[in-house]
């Protein structure tokens, strides 16, 4: 191994395996990160196509293009593909690429496990997308798989369950790897409160993943045995309770939504200081706020199910606990604003996406507060208001942060600069169309339009048409992303090592592109100190 390290020190590309072996047998965090990101991008367009089928059907009242069963499949599959196939793998891809670099490590702590984590995913989605072609069609009972409806699925039912099992194994192994990497592979001298915010948010995300993915596995296992082996977990006739599934599912599901947003907080905390040319305001409070959000995520799950008929004490507890989350989240938003205050701001594409995140995620947060209020939630439950809320936190929230991260670190990854003008176009098209797409859905929901429905009363026609126009505009604008990346890889101008003049952190101390094994030996204290200015 010493010879390998020695050789690699001379030439990063010397011992890099070539051809398909490089990818299939890979133990390199960058190659695996790239595979995760490419996979996520592919699934993003698959899930996006499903979204466009939904919006095409909803363009006008009446049934135009698809039958209701297929429409329901599209809503369920769109969610499963986007959550488990696009957003989560994109975060793991970014974690793979950036965490070892940012903490001064050569690679992830368990590189072979890393390969297993990734390569389970394509198989899981082969099974999940395979449901589209089996008798009875794809799962159509929503991504939340509530019994008894989910139990009535056809051949797709066990496929969905086992796809989720595979996906869960991948997530847990990947998250264990991230935790161990952060806890054990930091360069000497980088103590916990010197870690970059992206690393911190991912540490807490990984903890959430290890804690709740097995709970999801347990929940879907009980669905499986209820369907095939005669158990009565979710059947009242046998002493069980269908609502019990919702409790177990959302015990997973609520931490899951923070799994999708916490790394975004980390990204924004990296980007805003860089383009404000100021250190992050209130670094330690950011860390504690992230930890507080992680903790609170475990005790708010029942706000997803206020209308199922739970005791009043339960409703009050979950309402108040949910509202409490706005305190640490408010700390974060305040810190980002304070970071920009009197900063020397510039508006390169990553900063634009981070700023859009700041405004639009906050809108999603406010609608979340509205939904947390129990009596109000009785009106909003299962309406398009809910759809608008979670798309505001997931699309201009998580997705914009992912795109911002790609535009922030792409020059470091490939050593070339992308077309910033085109990326700015990508930003404005995305930012405008995402609002055209989702903002009217608030009005639709408040006016009473239910979610997951292929047809609707004519009173909802106008805003649905606007929303669908926004959807197609947003969807097609995203094609710019792969185009910009491919153009950058093929013919971008050489990027500087410190691509952004205000950037701090260990990743900017490495050459662009970063060498195959990031840090052969721990970076020195001086290098860490230079990087640790947040």
């Amino acid at each position, binding site marked *: 191994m010493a010879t390998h390290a020695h050789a690699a020190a001379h030439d990063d590309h010397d011992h890099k395996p070539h051809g398909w072996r490089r990818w299939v047998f890979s133990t390199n965090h960058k190659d695996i990160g790239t595979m995760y990101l490419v996979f996520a991008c592919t699934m993003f367009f698959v899930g996006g196509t499903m979204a466009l089928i939904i919006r095409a059907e909803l363009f006008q009242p009446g049934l135009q293009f698809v039958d209701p069963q297929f429409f329901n499949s599209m809503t369920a599959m769109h969610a499963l593909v986007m959550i488990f196939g696009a957003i989560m793998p994109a975060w793991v891809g970014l974690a793979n690429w950036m965490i070892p670099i940012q903490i001064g490590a050569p690679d992830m702590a368990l590189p*072979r496990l890393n390969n297993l984590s990734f*390569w389970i995913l394509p198989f899981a989605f082969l099974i999940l997308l395979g449901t589209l072609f089996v008798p009875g069609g794809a799962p159509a009972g929503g991504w939340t798989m509530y019994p008894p409806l989910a139990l009535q699925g056809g051949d797709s039912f066990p496929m969905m369950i086992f796809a989720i099992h*595979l996906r869960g194994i991948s997530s847990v192994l990947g*998250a264990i790897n991230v935790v161990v990497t952060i806890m054990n592979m930091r360069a000497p001298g980088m103590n916990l409160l010197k870690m970059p915010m992206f690393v911190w948010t991912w540490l807490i995300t990984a903890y959430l993943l290890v804690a709740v*993915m*097995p709970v999801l*596995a347990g929940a879907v296992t009980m669905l499986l045995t209820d369907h095939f*082996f005669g158990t009565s977990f979710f059947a009242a*006739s046998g002493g069980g309770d269908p609502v019990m599934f919702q409790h177990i599912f959302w015990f997973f599901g609520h931490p899951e939504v923070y799994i999708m947003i916490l790394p975004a907080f980390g990204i924004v905390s990296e980007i805003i200081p860089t383009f404000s040319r100021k250190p992050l305001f209130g670094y330690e409070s950011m860390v504690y706020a992230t930890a507080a959000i992680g903790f609170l995520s475990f005790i708010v799950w029942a706000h997803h199910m206020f209308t199922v008929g739970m005791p009043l004490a339960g409703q009050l507890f979950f309402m108040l606990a949910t509202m409490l989350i706005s305190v640490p989240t408010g700390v974060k938003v305040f810190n980002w604003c304070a970071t920009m205050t009197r900063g020397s701001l510039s508006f390169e594409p990553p900063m634009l996406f981070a700023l859009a995140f700041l405004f639009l995620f906050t809108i999603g947060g406010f609608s979340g507060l509205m939904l947390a209020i129990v009596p109000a939630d009785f009106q909003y439950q299962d309406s398009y208001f809910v759809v608008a809320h979670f798309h505001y936190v997931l699309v201009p929230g998580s997705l914009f942060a992912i795109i911002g991260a790609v535009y922030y670190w792409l020059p470091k990854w490939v050593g070339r600069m992308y077309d910033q003008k085109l990326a700015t176009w990508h930003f404005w098209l995305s930012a405008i169309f995402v609002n055209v797409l989702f903002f009217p859905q608030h009005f639709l929901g408040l006016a009473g339009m239910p979610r997951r429905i292929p047809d609707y009363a004519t009173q909802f026609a106008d805003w649905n048409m606007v929303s669908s126009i926004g959807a197609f505009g947003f969807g097609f604008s995203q094609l710019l992303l792969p185009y910009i990346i491919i153009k950058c890889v093929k013919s971008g101008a050489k990027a500087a090592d410190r691509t952004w003049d205000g950037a701090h952190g260990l990743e900017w101390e490495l050459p662009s592109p970063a060498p195959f094994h990031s840090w052969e030996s721990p970076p020195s204290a001086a290098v860490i100190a230079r990087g640790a200015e947040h």
Partner: protein
Amino acid sequence: MATAHAPAADKYYVPHGSHWPIVGSVSLFLVMFGAIAYLNEWFGGWIFLPGALLLSFMFFGWFHDVIGESRSGAYNHQVDRSFRMGMMWFIFSEVMFFAAFFGALFYARSLAVPWIGGEGVKVFNKLLLWQNYDPSWPTNGPARIGGHEDGSFQIIPAFGLPAINTAILLTSGITITIAHHALQAGNRTVLKVFLAATFLLGFLFVGLQAEEYMHAYKELGLKLSTGIYGSTFFMLTGFHGAHVTIGAIMLVVIWLRVMKGHFTPKSHFAFEGVAWYWHFVDVVWLGLFIFVYWI
């Protein structure tokens, strides 16, 4: 960088590529596909078996490589710590897997069943739906699902076989600790004997559980399909039994390694990892004994 010419000991260790992970992914896919095909009554359920064989082969091969690398001295302290942390977090994920089923047990027992029986605001369940239902635990629900012909069933008393099983597992926790101390003291004979005793107790436990299952199915009317009691009982004890079996196999593997002369008093992570896992199945059993059998 200042450390660019430091000796190799200061360098990070990065393992070379391996084909075992992709074998693992493919075999997991085959196992899952086989299970799906079997449940859907498609052609191809048999794929489960080659998948499971390939998965075993993967474990064998992967560990073979890692043990070889470890014994050749390729790993430094940092790698050892990574393995330790990885094992701890893996066990934590297993704890959370069991937490889902314990959660189902507690929810059903203290909320769902009383509600079905008409407790509190759910009084209409009693008035309109199930007038004659007695919501006391154990229950197989108002429809008396599963059980004997008449819907009745008996449960296994805690202070029979389950108490003996508790004693067996707790004893095995002591024997593995003795074995660990013997390993650290360099006393290989005691190590071999007590490690063997540990997995023998483990297999004895599994055997007695199997005996108990047969008794439950044949005489007590207690089956997986016996309402919520049977569901939680067999799900919890079944997954626990599976974990004990896996743990006992792991114990056999490290016992075979001990017989081949592996491990030193200072370096024996595999032994400790297996011991942690064994204590984990032990602690889960205590939870089972108290909440499933006893209370």
